[in-house]
């Protein structure tokens, strides 16, 4: 079901040192060129962010541990992540203040904009796009906006600074192609010509917008300015894309993944998608990924499951419905666990990929049965934080998720002290080195 490729764990610095039987303090071997190079590489190794939301909730009684702190007893679902115990932190009592409205809040998972169900609601920029603005120019793809959805639709949880939804890619094959399939010289030329034609088109329509702006009133001009800014922004993107077209795409051993198109195969598709995400990170094709999992209207092909997932989440506390939903959620946690383990197994320049990649996994529903928007089940894996603990906050007066986002921004080297409703970094979450 998954496609495989050989594990390439880089020789870590410590392994290297052990191998030659040296136990010197690290600074003193700076003269050793190879070792020095490795050390420098570690510092230069990029940091990354993967944010994953599953939009129909995670049953809270199976997710949240009872005790807090480092000695917490893993909950039913967290036992699935047991092997990763010291690589993640589980939170409780997190929420976005002012975010309510049942399902509507899925679109503010990464933005924190209040009252998403309100009549005049306007979204704000999502965390991944803040990161993409800062780091996006370093990689072929500034950021990946992906979804795993039954109809292979274009939903996502990423929004531009104007609050416009960025369509998500649902096809694993298309994603793989975009990342790794170089094509013939003619293909590359055609792509470059296409980008050039796009830029020349933008010149023309931009000139027209300017001309039009002279003939209209102030409020119309504001709208045209927005159009004009969009053109500028796209022009920059096309320019960068063109520059990347002249550099060959990375080669990976994993073959093009199979596309699971049936709604019931959603979890298989999730697995494939996560595999390609890992490849994208390993090849440094991008550093920011947002993945939106939307099992709406899906009769999951998990053994023992006979009901559509969304109906199951409205289980009305009926034990047999809860049991079915539990099977689906367990399978999903296993898929996430495989992804995290694979990231840990993949190394680059002496660090594990997981240590360099912050993975947020969570849901906007505190309890889907009652559509509550408080106490969001959330966890953070990897990224170079001190993990292995349960950070518990007030389950009623929730602690802002945006504080976690500020911690993540700072970890990525972005100078930020605020994001959405945040009042600082997340209390109790410390960087490891």
């Amino acid at each position: 079901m998954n496609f495989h490729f050989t594990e390439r764990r880089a020789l870590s610095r410590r392994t290297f040192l052990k191998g030659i039987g040296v136990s010197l303090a690290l600074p003193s071997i700076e003269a050793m060129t190879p070792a020095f190079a490795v050390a420098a590489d570690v510092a230069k190794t990029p940091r990354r962010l993967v944010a994953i939301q599953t939009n129909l909730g995670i049953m809270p009684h199976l997710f949240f541990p009872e005790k807090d702190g480092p000695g917490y007893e893993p909950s039913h679902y967290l036992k699935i992540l047991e092997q990763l115990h010291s690589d993640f932190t589980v939170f409780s009592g997190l929420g976005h203040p002012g975010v309510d409205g049942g399902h509507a809040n899925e679109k503010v998972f990464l933005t924190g904009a209040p009252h998403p169900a309100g009549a005049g609601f306007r979204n704000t920029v999502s965390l991944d796009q803040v990161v993409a603005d800062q780091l996006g120019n370093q990689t072929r793809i500034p950021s990946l906006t992906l979804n795993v959805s039954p109809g292979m639709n274009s939903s996502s949880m990423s929004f531009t600074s104007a609050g416009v939804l960025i369509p998500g890619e649902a096809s694993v094959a298309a994603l793989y192609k975009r990342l790794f399939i170089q094509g013939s010289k003619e293909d590359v030329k055609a792509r470059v010509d296409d980008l050039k034609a796009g830029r020349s088109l933008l010149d023309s329509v931009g000139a027209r917008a300017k001309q039009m702006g002279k003939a209209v009133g102030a409020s119309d001009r504001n709208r045209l300015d927005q159009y004009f800014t969009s053109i500028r922004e796209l022009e920059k993107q096309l320019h960068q894309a063109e520059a990347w077209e002249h550099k060959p795409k990375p080669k990976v051993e994993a073959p093009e993944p199979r596309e699971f198109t049936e709604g019931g195969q959603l979890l298989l598709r999730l697995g494939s998608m996560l595999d390609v995400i890992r490849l994208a990170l390993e090849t440094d094709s991008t550093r920011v990924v947002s993945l939106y999992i939307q099992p709406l209207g899906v009769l999951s092909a998990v053994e023992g499951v006979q009901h559509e997932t969304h109906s199951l989440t409205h289980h009305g506390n009926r034990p047999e419905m809860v049991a079915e939903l539990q099977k689906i959620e367990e399978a999903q946690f296993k898929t996430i666990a495989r992804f995290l383990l694979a990231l840990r197994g993949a190394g680059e320049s002496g660090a594990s990929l997981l240590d360099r990649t912050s993975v947020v996994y969570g849901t906007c529903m505190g309890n889907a049965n009652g559509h509550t928007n408080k106490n969001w089940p959330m966890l953070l894996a990897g990224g170079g934080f001190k993990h292995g603990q349960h950070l518990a906050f007030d389950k009623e007066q929730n602690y802002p998720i945006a504080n976690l986002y500020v911690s993540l921004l700072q970890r990525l080297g972005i100078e930020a002290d605020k994001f959405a409703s945040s009042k600082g970094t997340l209390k109790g979450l410390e960087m490891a080195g």
Partner: protein
Amino acid sequence: MLLGTLAVSATHAAAAERPVPLKAFLRQYCSECHDAESKKGGLDLAVLKPDFADAPTFAKWVRIFDRVHAGEMPPPKKTQPPAAERDSALKGLSADLNAADVRRQRELGRVALRRLNRSEYENTLRDLFGMPGLAVKELLPEDGRSDGFDKVSDALEISAVQMRKYLEVADLVLDEAIAHEAKPVVYRCRERLVGGLAHFFETSFPIIDRKKVDLDLWDQMKAAKLPLREQHLESMQSLGYISNERESFHPEVGAFSPIHSGMYRIKTSVWSFYYKPGEILPAERMQSVALLASGRLLTHFDAPSLEPRQHELVVWLNAGEKLSLNAANLWITFPSLKKFEGPGVAMDWMDIEGPLNETWPPLSHCRLFGELPLKRVPNFDNKGAPVPEGAKNPGKPGPHPRQPAPVARHPGARPSHKDGDEFNPKRIAIWTVESQHPEQDAARLLADFLPRAFRRPVAATEVAEYVKIARERIAAGDFFESAMRAAYRVALCSPDFLFLNETAGTGGPNDPALLDPYALACRLSYFLWNSMPDEELTALAAKKQLSVKVIQEQVNRMLADQRSERFIEDFTDQWLDLRNINFTSPDGRLYPEFRHDLRDAIVSETRAYFREMLNKDLGAAHVIDSDFVMINQRLAEHYGISGVVGSAIRRVPVPPGNPRGGFITQGAVLKLTANGTVSSPVTRGVWIMDRILGKRPAPPPPDIPAVDPDTRGATTLREQLDKHRNNASCAGCHAKMDPPGFALENFDVIGGWRTRYRHIGETGDPPDVAQFINAPAAKKFENHFRYGLPVDAAGTTVDGKPFKDIHEFKRILLTEQESVARNFVQRVILYATGAPVSFADRAEVERILDASRQSRFGFRTILNQVTQSPAFLHK
């Protein structure tokens, strides 16, 4: 403090004229709570300047006006102002707010430049190119909404993401629009199979003489390999099947999947029966089958008992779609023909023909290239010599204009190379337009295309800009087609195409915001067709003939036109939230009778009812109640109304005592206000307050505990909510919004009538099999659900009027017709103009209400009034 601020503001022109009482009024009755220290509700009157030109400040003053005007402020506990004092204060404030808003509207217009939303964009492309089923909407990011509508200028943002998509879609549309072949490639076939060969002699089977099924053959073939079964395909008379679509049975028709998007003619012959092992007996009811193209519902065909009925349909199909003919009325079954007893449907054949092009090249191509001839682009052999047409070795294409990407179709799809050379991708030659005078042609074609695309006259200098783009490419040696394409692509991504540029100024200095005739034509067409004006409307604009009388004639003509269905769908989607109809799927154990036939019918009902209200000028009362419903057979069965046969929606009188009639007791509304398992009176109450009465309650305060629904049967959601409501701080709002929801408690999550709740559990009575239409004889329902606690649909409205059920509640609600009408007027204005009703528009709303009072707030009258209102006629 407060006085100081107001005194400073005297520099402001509007403030200088403010009548004295407001200052005193605010100080006396409001400043105790709304001062710098308390700032109750976030309002600090000490710093609130009367700067009405500033939008947020203006909005605050409007809110102050509204709360005081409604008597909500000062709150009951505080000293109440005498009515005269209050009225005087408000009068002055109202005049100021109105003056400021009128000035804004005159200077800037009510509506800022508005981007086409994605439905409008898609429809405009469809109409511009004459490709009625072109599907590009889903390729664009979702639009921002305001008050549930995607028509509001302020919420329709644009970003680089959108621009990139516009570029892509422009290319896709041009790929589809431009002809690349010498002549149309028409495919004709007769399909016999539904559900694929693997299901032949499983779920589907041959029927002999409409009388019997050969069970021996069935036995034999069930064990046989697929090719052996295939030989019975051609010889069979009718194909029967007895299951609705299920995970393992997709009722796809043959292997047909178009290579070309376009119009197709589909003819079929279908009928129905009741099956007993080996026997074909008369059906117990008229059945119907749903024709779908890759999940897109095209129509329902009625299938009478034992009598084949022929149907014909001409419809747009997109390349790569698959047709299916679903037995939508039937239950999902896994039948063995030796045991099964129950209803089934039969198809004798289905003939498919298309694409049907009345002319060649098609209209879409002619819109771009006029009458210019097509010419073949030569292929070359491996020595580089051109290959003549029809040669054995087709060769490889040389340089040629961009071609559409190959269509993604499922393996084994027909037509394929087996159906003839014209369907063999290797042998299809590339053709392109030929121009003897490229520059003149470019100028001529663009001068024709641009005014159409931009929906207004286009100056010669503007056309010249586009000709320049083509000329440069022609000079660089490009194909004429490619050069023109570059120009067209710019046009389709330009602000002139993507925005509704509503030019004002024809009204002169006294009326600077009056729309020019072309902009007015667009207002009308984007309102009623969600798309560009047609030739008649444009001609009227050109002749400056869009007078009040002509507008009314045009509204009538446009509503009679098929394109107005877009308005009906889009407006009901947004006003009544119909777009959310599939947001939840009813729990299959609790609601086994809910299948796609019912789902499709409830949506059609609400749309048809709205259409009927417009056609017959029915008014606000009909929103609440009515003596007729718009239903088909399936829905009649659902509503307990007899004598309705067939899948077509028609007008049927409501029998005495039946609770149906009006929007609020329609299946669609009841379903979309429930979640598939339970219905919450709060959700339904809020929906009625908001969408019907226009009094949207404030969102719940943060930090209230939520209710965890429980369907094990021991308690009802209403009981659970009662506990929650007893909390004093919740009671105030819930007293308003819960009662309408209580009145709807007799309706379950699929809009069926209930007197007891369904639950999954051991207690209570099991359902009666007879209540389920079409259920197979052996179908058992004990494991599905049981009837539990009784429904309590009684309540008391916030102003103390008790009701015992929906009938009584409707009577109470009928006293609020004016609110219902006002809500409709406000939402139509928002939808039609792209901006919500603002302070200065309020008087106009009341005028429209007065003008339509005689028609009892008839919806058609209101629609006409809106199209003649200043808000509609001005930018």
